[in-house]
């Protein structure tokens, strides 16, 4: 019983230990707050500035999940097209690969030049990062249906809609979910990277801009506070998609049967 409790609590204990060590290091070595702020100072700064940081946080969340939603829609649609037509897949897949390998850091400023609205440019950058894993995984998944099950569906004269709904989609689900888990984190990274590199404007600014602003104004604890929010968001995305994966696949897919 005690061992199990320890096991469940170990990540939290580890984190608390690290934070305590960080706090001790700052205090004992008298590290100035503008170089490395102590965790307590970061938390205090976060609380003090939460009003203004919350708005930026919301903006970053909107870009992140907006890009993710668009990546899901786009990825599933294009994957379906590819699954239907091997010819189209052969012709267009290299384009998708180009999209994947071009570093968003390099093209974000370009996109900002070509796209009118700054928000749309940021969405596009984050989308580019999140799109490919969903596309490639879903294409794989749509092809993954058991050939014997395909034969069975043919035997029982299933309609194309029945085949899609009852066979292809469930077969593709584990692959799609795997892509989703990857893209969840990537859309956050894409949203932040795009804003860091290309910048945001006026009232529509996210946490990346706040980090930059704090950096320019030498407000290091504020940088850390904004960073803390970003980290919390990333962790929340990771956990929720893992939970989603468990919920959808837990009973039947090898990847979740641990």
């Amino acid at each position, binding site marked *: 019983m005690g061992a199990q409790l320890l096991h469940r609590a170990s990540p939290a204990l580890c984190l608390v230990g690290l934070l305590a060590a960080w706090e001790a290091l700052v205090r004992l070595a008298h590290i100035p707050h503008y170089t490395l702020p102590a965790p307590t100072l970061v938390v205090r700064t976060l609380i003090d500035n939460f009003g203004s940081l919350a708005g930026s946080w919301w903006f970053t969340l909107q870009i992140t999940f907006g890009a993710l939603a668009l990546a899901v829609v786009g990825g599933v649609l294009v994957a379906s097209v590819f699954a239907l037509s091997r010819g189209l897949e052969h012709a267009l897949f290299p384009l998708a690969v180009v999209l994947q390998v071009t570093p968003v850091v390099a093209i974000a400023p370009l996109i900002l030049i070509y796209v009118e609205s700054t928000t749309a440019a940021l969405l596009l950058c984050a989308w580019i990062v999140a799109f490919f894993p969903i596309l490639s995984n879903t294409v794989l998944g749509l092809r993954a249906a058991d050939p014997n099950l395909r034969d069975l569906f043919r035997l029982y004269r299933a309609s194309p809609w029945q085949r899609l709904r009852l066979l292809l989609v469930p077969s593709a689900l584990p692959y799609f979910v795997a892509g989703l888990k990857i893209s969840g984190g990537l859309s956050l990274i894409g949203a932040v990277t795009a804003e860091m590199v290309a910048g945001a404007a006026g009232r529509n600014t996210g946490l990346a801009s706040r980090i930059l*602003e704090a950096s320019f104004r030498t407000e290091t604890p504020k940088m850390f506070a904004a960073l803390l929010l970003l980290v919390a968001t990333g962790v929340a995305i990771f956990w929720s998609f893992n939970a989603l994966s468990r919920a959808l696949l837990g009973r039947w897919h090898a990847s979740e049967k641990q």
Partner: protein
Amino acid sequence: MNSHRIHNPIRNLAAAVFTLAGIAHAEDKVTFATNWKAQAAHGGFYQAVADGTYKKYGLDVTIQQGGPQVNNRPLLPAGRIDFLMTGNLLHSFDNVKNGVPTIVVAAMFQKDPQALIAHPGQGYESFDKLKTAPVALIAKDGQFSWWQWLKVTHGFKDEALKPYNYNLGPFLANPKAIQQGYSVAEPIYVENQGKFKPVVHLLADHGFSTYSTVIEARTDTVKNKPDLVQRFVDASAIGWVNYLYGDRRAANAMMMKDNPEMTPEEIEASVALMKQQGIVDSGEALKGGIGAMSDARIKDFYEQMVKAGLYKPGEVDLSKVATLQFVNKRVGMDIKSKLAK
């Protein structure tokens, strides 16, 4: 002095020994970080390296460039550089406000060349029409500093703000757009690439009265090595005098090596503008030498920024912002009178 030398061999010997001792004494290694890639606005510092002025003052100076994606500022309090160039006093106010132990020791520019530029014939000939522009291309640094002042004091709106990534394309393509720039730099590039002379509005002409290209140092450098700071400030001021009024070809060559995108024509055009607009050598510098500063002007600028809502009254202890102990000593003015005929 020459006559003394001829008539006093013992004094000659003593002078020789002291000079030799000076040469034998190792030069102080100093790193100076700028806020942009090498350009004419950094000319005086490169001059002091190129013509040996820093060496004469016992300094081995390395100039570390800034750039569009480079932020050298955290390096100063972290101890990785010795002196830092910043573009206006806002950064210094922020540092004092946040308890970062740095201080301004000299101000090379009496006028901030920060400007807004626009297409001619689009109605932006008057400064107060600029706020009606549908697109204002402002970079991150400006967004978080003087743009805030423009909003409060001159009615600019965030809706027009678009991030500027140091690419002239969007401005050149959109006649209704305005963008930021240095009055002594961007207009030259715009004329070269866009083939037109842009309208230039200096922020300094509309109330943005800060010093610019100021030299910041750590407070403990000022406390523990004041002689080093004095030598750096003096040599830099002399470097600027020689750059503006003397032979600057070696300095220009150095800058072009650091920043291969610069051309000699652009540099010369920029120097001409600097002189014409009185960026470096005007106002207090005419009396106290390049680098001159006054408490009154710092206080005035701070109060303007308080009015603009960037700071709360009394939030910044102005006595910690700058020290005048190293400037206002007319350093370099004798050289200037010899060169600037």
